[in-house]
C-alpha cells in the first residue's frame, strides 16, 4: 500500500479500542495484536484510512480491537470483501486478518484469487494449525496424525504449507513471522505494507487451549536460534545461535542442504545468498522444515507487479476521460432510436 505518509503523532494506544479483548489468556493473538498496534503508527497512514477485514475464527476477532475501520465478515470470504472494498476505494489501506481454517479451508479459493490478482493490501494469516473458535478440530495446516475431536485416531490428510501455497498461486510478496517475534513481526509487517500488491504474511501463532506448544520447537527462546533462519535480502543464508550454519543448494537434486561453516572446508561463499525476487528460492525456503532444516522467517519473496485495482480503475478512468461528460440521457439514446 502506498497511501501518502502523513506526519501524525499516533501511538500504539491510539489503535486500541474500548472493547475488552476476549481471547483466552495466554493466546498468541495478544502478542500479534500488540505488535500490530505498535507497528501502525510507524506506517504513517491516517487511522481513518485503515480498514481491517476478517472472516470468522478467533483470529478474525482482530478488527474489534483495532481503532480503525473494521468489518468482521463471514467465514473464509474476507479476501472477497477486501477486493470489493479496494475496487470501490483504492485509497484505503486494507489489512485482512485470517486463520488457517478461514484462509485455507473454506477460504482457499478466495485467497488464491486475491493473490493471483495482486490486490493491493496486506493479508495476515494467523496459523495455529487448528480451528480455535470451534473448539479444536484439525485444520488444513495440522500435521499428520493430529488428534482432535474430529480425528480421534489422528488426522490423515497431509497439511498445506501456507507460504508454498501462496507462491504456487503466483503471490508477489510472501513473508513469515511468529506471534512472539516482538521485533521481527513489525519489520515483516512494514515490508508487507510497503509492497505494492498483496502482502501475504504467515504468522505462526500459539493456541494455548487447543494446540499448545505446536511451534515450541521453533519459537521457544532456547531453540529459536537453531530452529529459525532469518532471511535478509542480499545476505547469505546463515543461522544457528552461533551463526555457524548455513544453507547451500545441491544443484543435482535441486534441494537445499544445511551445512556447518568451517566444517569440511565450507565457507560463506558456498552458501546461497537470499534474493527476494527469486520465486524458486522462495519456494525452497518456504518448504524448509525441522528437524533437518531451520524454518525460514522474514521476507521470503518480494517482487512487485501491477495491482489489480489500479488496472481496473485505470480502465475506468481512461474511459471517463475519453468521454468526459457522458450523461445517462446519452446512454439511453445510444444506437437506433426513432421519434414519434
Amino acid at each position: 500500500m502506498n497511501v501518502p505518509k502523513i506526519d501524525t503523532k499516533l501511538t500504539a494506544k491510539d489503535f486500541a479500542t474500548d472493547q475488552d479483548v476476549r481471547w483466552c489468556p495466554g493466546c498468541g493473538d495478544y502478542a500479534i495484536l500488540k505488535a500490530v498496534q505498535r507497528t501502525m503508527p510507524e506506517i504513517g497512514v491516517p487511522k481513518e484510512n485503515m480498514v481491517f477485514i476478517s472472516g470468522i475464527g478467533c483470529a478474525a476477532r482482530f478488527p474489534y480491537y483495532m481503532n480503525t475501520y473494521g468489518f468482521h465478515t463471514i467465514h473464509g470470504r474476507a479476501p472477497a470483501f477486501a477486493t470489493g472494498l479496494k475496487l470501490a476505494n483504492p485509497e484505503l489501506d486494507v489489512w485482512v486478518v485470517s486463520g488457517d481454517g478461514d484462509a485455507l479451508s473454506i477460504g482457499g479459493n478466495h485467497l488464491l484469487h486475491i493473490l493471483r490478482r495482486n490486490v493491493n493490501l496486506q493479508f495476515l494469516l494467523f496459523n495455529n494449525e487448528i480451528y480455535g473458535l470451534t473448539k479444536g478440530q484439525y485444520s488444513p495446516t495440522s500435521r499428520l496424525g493430529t488428534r482432535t475431536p474430529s480425528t480421534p485416531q489422528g488426522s490423515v490428510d497431509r497439511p498445506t504449507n501456507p507460504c508454498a501455497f501462496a507462491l504456487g498461486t503466483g503471490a508477489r510478496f510472501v513473508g513469515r513471522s511468529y506471534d512472539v517475534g516482538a521485533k521481527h513481526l513489525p519489520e515483516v509487517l512494514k515490508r508487507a505494507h510497503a509492497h505494492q500488491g498483496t502482502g501475504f504474511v504467515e504468522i505462526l501463532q500459539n493456541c494455548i487451549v487447543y494446540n499448545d506448544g505446536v511451534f515450541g520447537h521453533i519459537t521457544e527462546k532456547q531453540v529459536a536460534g537453531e530452529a529459525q533462519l532469518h532471511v535478509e535480502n542480499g545476505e547469505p543464508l546463515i543461522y544457528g545461535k552461533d551463526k555457524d550454519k548455513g544453507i547451500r543448494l545441491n544443484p543435482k537434486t535441486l534441494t537445499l542442504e544445511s551445512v556447518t561453516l568451517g566444517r569440511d572446508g565450507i565457507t560463506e561463499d558456498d552458501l546461497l545468498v537470499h534474493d527476494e525476487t527469486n520465486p524458486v528460492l522462495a519456494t525452497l525456503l518456504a518448504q524448509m522444515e525441522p528437524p533437518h532444516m531451520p524454518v525460514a522467517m522474514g521476507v521470503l519473496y518480494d517482487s512487485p507487479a501491477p495491482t489489480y485495482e489500479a488496472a481496473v480503475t485505470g480502465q475506468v478512468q481512461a474511459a471517463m476521460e475519453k468521454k468526459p461528460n457522458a450523461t445517462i440521457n446519452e446512454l439511453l439514446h445510444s444506437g437506433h432510436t426513432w421519434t414519434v
Partner: protein
Amino acid sequence: MSTPLLKEDQSRPSAPREERDSVVVRFAGDSGDGMQLTGSQFSQATALAGNDLATFPDFPAEIRAPVGTTYGVSAFQINFGATSIETSGDAPDVLVALNPAALAVNIKRLRKGGLVLLDSGSFTERNIRQAGFSQDPRQDNSLGGYQVLEIDISQRVLEVARPLGLSQKDALRCKNMWVLGLVYWMYDREPQQTLDWLAAKFAKVPEVAEANIAALKAGHAYGETMELSGEMRGYRVPAREVKPGAYRLITGAQALAWGLVAGCKLAELRMTFCSYPITPSSPLLHILSGLKQYGVVTFQAEDEIAAACAAIGASYAGSMGITASSGPGLALKTEAIGLAFGAELPLVVVDTQRGGPSTGLPTKTEQSDLYLAVWGRNADAPLPVIASHGPGDCFEAAIEAVRLAAKYMTPVMLLSDGYIANAAEPWLIPDMNDIAPFPVTFHTDPEDFSPFRRDQDTLARNWAIPGTPGLEHRIGGIERDYDTGHISYEPANHQKMTDVRAAKVNGIANDIPEQSFTEGGPGAALTVVGWGSTYGPIRQAVAALRAEGEDVAHLHVRHIWPLPRNLGSLLEGTGRVLVPEMNSGQFATLLRSQYLVPAESLSKVTGQPFTIAELKDAIRARLGGGA
C-alpha cells in the same frame, strides 16, 4: 403511431396489401444460420415502421451444436401490430424454417392454417433423418393444415453470392438475409437500415457485405415477383398510435443494466458491479463492462459467493454494491446476503430467473426463485423484493431497487427472468431530468456517533464510510447492540434488533405506491393476480375477456416484499383469486399466508411463457364455462 421513417406512401403501386392488426413471425434455423440477427433486424425495421412489438429469442442450450440437429435449432419470434402488443404471441402466423430440424422443433407451434416457409434446398436425406423425421415431412401428411411455401433458398443464395467470390459455405451463410428480404417484402418493411448495417458490419470484407446485401435484395425481389404471379401476397400492418417521444428497442437485460447505472447516478453513488457469469444473467455483466465511461466498475469474481461479498465490501466502502446471478448462483449467495442484512449495508441482488431445480433448464424461463428471494436465508432476514414485469420496465424497477437499498441500508432483491432479459420491445425513452434524484448523504459527524443510530422515519442506520476521520468503527455479522453497534449477546437486545430490522423493511410499504388494478377493479367475480413477466399475457387475456363482458380483474404486483399496504384490502373485497405463475404456486403461497385469501395457483412449469389463450381458457373455466 407515425414515424418520419414510415413511408407508406412510397409503397409499390402493385396489388393493395391486405391489412392485419397484428402478426406473429417465427424465424427458425440452425445455430449457425444467424436467426437471432435476422430477428433483431426485423424487429428494428418493424419498430421503425411504427408497430408495437414483443420478441422472444429462443436459443438452444448448446453453444453451437452439430449442424442439422434438433438441439442446434435457434429461433426468434416476434409479435407486432397496430395495437398494444405485450407478449411475443401465442402461435406464429408465419414460420420460417431454414432446415428440417427447425421445422421439426417448431411446426407444432404454428397456428392452424399458418404459413410455413421452407428452404427446400436443406431437405437432404441426411438432414431429414437428423431432424428425427422417419420420412420427408413434405411428402407425408405432416404439414397438412398449414400453407407451405417451399423455396430453394440455398440454391438462390448460391446463385447470388458465388459470383461475388464467396465459398459455398460462406455463400450459404447469406440465407438469413435472403429470407429477411422476403419477409420485409411480405410486411412492407423498409430494408434500408439493414442494408446500411450490413455494409458497416462487413466493411472489412466487402465481398461478404455485398453478398448479404445482394441476398436481401434478391429475397425482396422474389416476393415482388411471386406476388405478380399471384403465388404470394403482401400485408400491411398499420402503425400504432402511441405517445409522442423518442423510442428505441430495448431488451430486459439492457434496461436493467441501464436502470442500475441511472439509479446510482440518482443516488450520487459510484457503482461496483460484481458478478460471476451464468445464463441468463451474464448479459448484465457484459453490458455494464462496456459502460466504464459512466464510472461503472465491474468485477468478474471467482464465484458467486465472492461476487456477493465483493459487492458488500464495496457498499461498506461507500459505493453501491450490486451483484447479479441466476438460481444456482443466487443459492450460493444466501449466506453473504444474510451478512448484508445483519450489518445493514445497501446491496442490490439481481436474479434473472431460469428453469430449475439445480442446473435445470438454463436457457428456459421460469419464475421459481420467489421462495428463495423472500424466504431463502438462515434465520429471520426479511428483505425488500421487487419484480420487473417486462423489458422496458426493468429500467424503473432497477432504479427503485437502488433507491430502497440506499435509503433503507438493506439488501434488495430484484427479480427478472430469462424471458424478460432477452425479449425486446419498443421503449419510450425517459428523460433523466424528469426523474427525482435521491442523493445519499454519508454520515460525517463524529459527535455522539454510533454506526447503528437510526433515522427516526426510515429506521435506517447511519452510513459512515472508511476514510471519514473520527468515525472509525467496527461492524460484523454477530448481533450488534441496538445503541452502540458493538457485539451483544444480550437476549433482550436480540429481540429488539430482530424487531427493528423487520420494522424497517415492513415500513417500506409506506414508501412504495399503493396497489392499483391493471384491468377492472374491486369486487370482480375473479381477480387474476400476477407478478413479473406474466404481466403481458395476463393483461391481454383479462382485457380480452373483459371486452367479452366477463367479470374479471387484473392486479399486477411489483413489490413482492413488503407487499403494498392496501393489497390485502383489495383482495379481501374480491371473489375468486387466481395466481398464474411459471412455478408451482410460490406467489400464491405468499398471498395465502399474508391475507388468508383462498388464492388459487395456476401453475405452468414448461420453461415457456403463458399464452394468452391458455390464460383465457383457465379464467373462463373458473368463471363457469366462458361467455
